[in-house]
């Protein structure tokens, strides 16, 4: 039985959560206006091409999810539970691709594996097979998204009560059998949550599918917007994307329901014994090296090569200080606002569970698979008309980031709240503290590490955001992402390498904070 079931939620909490969710639904409201205004929705839904696009999109999302789980989960297990040599180093490196924007990843992969790319040059062959299309998109998106699965699985493995595994072993199960019957199922909720983030990212991503020329709903939406006159078709396709999000949410909810494992008691977190890899050490190392090599060393190497070519060609290279500052301030604000906004929703969903509260929480995801351009245009529509003073200010840009990345903040806050026993809150209440004071003085401090993790996820996503930034930023406001865009627009890769490397470097410390907060030594409160 959930702790708060049956209690009525305080009105201010309900209002705050309702307001947050209403704000997140603005893009949906806009799409409805556009679809209703065009009147061609049914015609578009009847076209074969539309369903081919849906098929392509589902195929890609399923493929990326499968690949991200196949890479992320074993990697997490290897670095947390085994005696793999250098596992701390592998763990640190494995999270880094999270800060590489997927369009930069795609540029780098094409630069290397392209028909006449660096690899072809190095091998001295005339041309390599074409990597554009499904497989190229799959690899680039896996690069950009597997860290979500890796980080969440890693955190879950740290949290998992070793007593469960010990008991299984005591009952005569082999190491492999324990892995399959206890550890694996226990990881399902974390893998499911990671997979959801991966699926939403893949559904909304435009950069990769456009560079890799793979036709998905998102790419079609962009093409439609470029056809300029009738915006209803684009809006119809966007609503189709929203319904795919609903499917992803239901699937994720199912994995969560099936896989929940509770700790037997509060029990102190113990250091778990490392599984000796033995003769599997070499293959395990090869696996880690392949992942890190393909997803981190290769893109970094390509960027380094372009930078070197720029220096050799004496191109004007500039350290993007201002752009870095712009990225940091907008993303930092977005991270703060997102977790603040997530608090009422998370408290309502977890402390006062009800059908309505759960629906409200799930609604937060509705707009998350929408491409940035759609979110941006919806905010243009509303802000230019009804909120002129904030239109094209930093405030609206930050708001756009929050709308786009809210679920990431929410997932952090929720996972933290889940770990804080309601008993502490009840104790504070019985000592005469009001609900707000309890939240501020007890809940939030105890949930600190999860809140930080949520903020860090939002921050890292906002750092990479491009389409909404282009349309909504204050005039003259530059971020590292817009700088990269500006330079790759005119094909100046050697000049774009510097802001791309700066983006990775600036995100680094926050990434470190994120992975640290997901490890028990520094975070969590047991």
């Amino acid at each position, binding site marked *: 039985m959930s702790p708060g079931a049956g209690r009525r939620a305080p009105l201010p909490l309900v209002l705050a959560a309702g307001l947050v969710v209403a704000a997140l639904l603005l893009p949906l409201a806009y799409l409805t206006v556009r679809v209703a205004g065009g009147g061609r929705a049914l015609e578009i839904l009847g076209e074969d091409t539309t369903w081919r696009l849906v098929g392509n999109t589902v195929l890609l999302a399923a493929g990326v999810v499968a690949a991200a789980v196949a890479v992320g989960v074993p990697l997490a297990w290897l670095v947390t539970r085994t005696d793999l040599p250098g596992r701390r180093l592998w763990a640190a490196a494995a999270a880094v691709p999270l800060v590489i924007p997927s369009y930069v990843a795609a540029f780098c992969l094409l630069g290397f594996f*392209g*028909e006449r790319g660096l690899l072809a040059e190095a091998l001295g062959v005339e041309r390599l097979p074409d990597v554009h299309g499904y497989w190229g998109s799959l690899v680039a998106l896996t690069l950009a998204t597997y860290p979500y699965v890796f980080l969440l699985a890693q955190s879950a493995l740290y949290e998992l009560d070793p007593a469960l595994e010990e008991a299984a072993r005591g009952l005569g199960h082999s190491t492999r059998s324990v892995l399959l019957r206890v550890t694996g199922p226990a990881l399902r909720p974390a893998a499911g949550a990671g997979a959801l983030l991966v699926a939403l990212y893949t559904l909304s991503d435009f950069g990769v599918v456009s560079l890799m*020329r793979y036709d998905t709903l998102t790419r079609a939406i962009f093409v439609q917007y*470029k056809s300029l006159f009738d915006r209803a078709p684009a809006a119809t396709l966007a609503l189709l994307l929203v319904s795919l999000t609903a499917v992803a949410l239901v699937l994720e909810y199912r994995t969560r329901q099936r896989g929940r494992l509770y700790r037997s008691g509060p029990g102190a977190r113990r250091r778990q014994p490392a599984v000796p890899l033995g003769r599997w050490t070499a293959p395990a190392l090869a696996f880690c090296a392949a992942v890190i090599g393909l997803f981190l060393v290769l893109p970094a190497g390509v960027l380094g090569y372009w930078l070197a070519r720029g220096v050799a060609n004496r191109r004007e290279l500039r350290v993007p200080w201002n752009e870095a500052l712009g990225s940091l301030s907008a993303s930092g604000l977005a991270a703060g606002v997102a977790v603040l906004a997530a608090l009422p929703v998370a408290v309502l969903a977890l402390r006062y569970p009800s059908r309505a509260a759960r629906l409200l929480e799930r609604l937060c995801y509705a707009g998350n698979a929408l491409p940035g351009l759609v979110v941006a245009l919806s905010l243009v*529509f509303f802000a230019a008309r009804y909120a002129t003073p904030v239109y094209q200010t930093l405030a609206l840009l930050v708001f756009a980031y929050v709308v786009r990345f809210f679920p990431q903040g929410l997932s952090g806050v929720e996972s933290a709240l889940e770990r804080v026993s309601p008993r502490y809150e009840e104790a504070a209440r019985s000592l005469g503290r009001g609900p707000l004071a309890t939240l501020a003085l007890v809940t939030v401090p105890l949930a600190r590490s999860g809140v930080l993790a949520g903020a860090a996820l939002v921050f890292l996503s906002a750092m990479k955001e491009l389409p909404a930034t282009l349309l909504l930023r204050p005039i003259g406001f530059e971020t590292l992402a817009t700088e990269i865009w500006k330079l790759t627009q005119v094909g100046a*890769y050697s000049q774009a390498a510097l802001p791309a490397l700066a983006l990775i470097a600036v995100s680094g410390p926050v990434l470190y904070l994120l992975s640290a907060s997901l490890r028990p030594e520094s975070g969590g409160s047991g």
Partner: protein
Amino acid sequence: MRSIVGLAVLAAALAGCGGGSEALTVYSGREEELVAPLFERFTAETGIEVEVRYGDSAELAATIAEEGGSSPADVFFAQDPGSLGAVEAQLAPLPAAILERVDARFRDAGGRWVGTSGRTRVIVYNTEALREDEVPDSVFDLIDPRWKGRIGIAPTNASFQAFVTAMRLAVGDERTRRWLLDLKRLEPKTYEKNTPIVEAVAAGEVDLGLVNHYYLYLVREEQPDAPIANHFLRAGDPGALVSVAGAGVLASSDQPGEAERFVEFLLSDAGQRFYVEEAEEAEYPLVAGIPARPGLPPLAKLRGPSVDLTSFGAEHEATIELLRETGYLT
């Protein structure tokens, strides 16, 4: 602490925008790397501050459409007639003195936008793979089995779509459809935009590409030794379309006078000579008496199909439909 820093940043940003009513706001679909010096020159000459929002022409057109009457933009400076045509209803007619700086074929018949620089479609080819006399003089001659898998195009890009519109207007929908289907059978490689096509030609990924003439110069900046050259097509061929980048003043602008001065500046001798003397990308100036950069055939010699750029906005939808039917778009 963070919130204090945040508030300070927010306040600064708000203050920055508060001053916005004095500066002229330009939405530029033309790349900052290419046109930023023009804006600086304008401010130096007139003392009018300019704030520029850079973006993709079509996305900015969509933005202007969503903003409606409350658009902060005073001027829309776009990459192609199609984007300008898309927001035509939101543009104010320009004074005849500005319009008449350029030939009638380079401006809107209704006087709502005016071309500011010209470009022609060409076939860019790899000089290591082909001699110039091997490169076709007409896009219709491209339909030949020997070009199978060797052609690069950008069907989702406005410049390719404008070329298809030109072909439709010049030779009719049926012949255009046949050409598109025939081309499709040659398995052309598709790219997002012109620059990657020229890069692919330079890399030998394809041997020739249908592009605007000036992207060659951008790629040369990055790869000075790239084995690429432009081939100009036969006069009257749809593949030789001469099109423009252009500008228009928003009807909702609160400073139409300054906005017109800006368009006027773009068409002044200094604004036009910029493309000859400074710009990396060597577009054509449109004002008579200012010759193009040496090495380019003169503008007057370029003869695309005789079509009216004004209709490109209205014809765009039918072009998109045709491209979709023939499998070029999704």
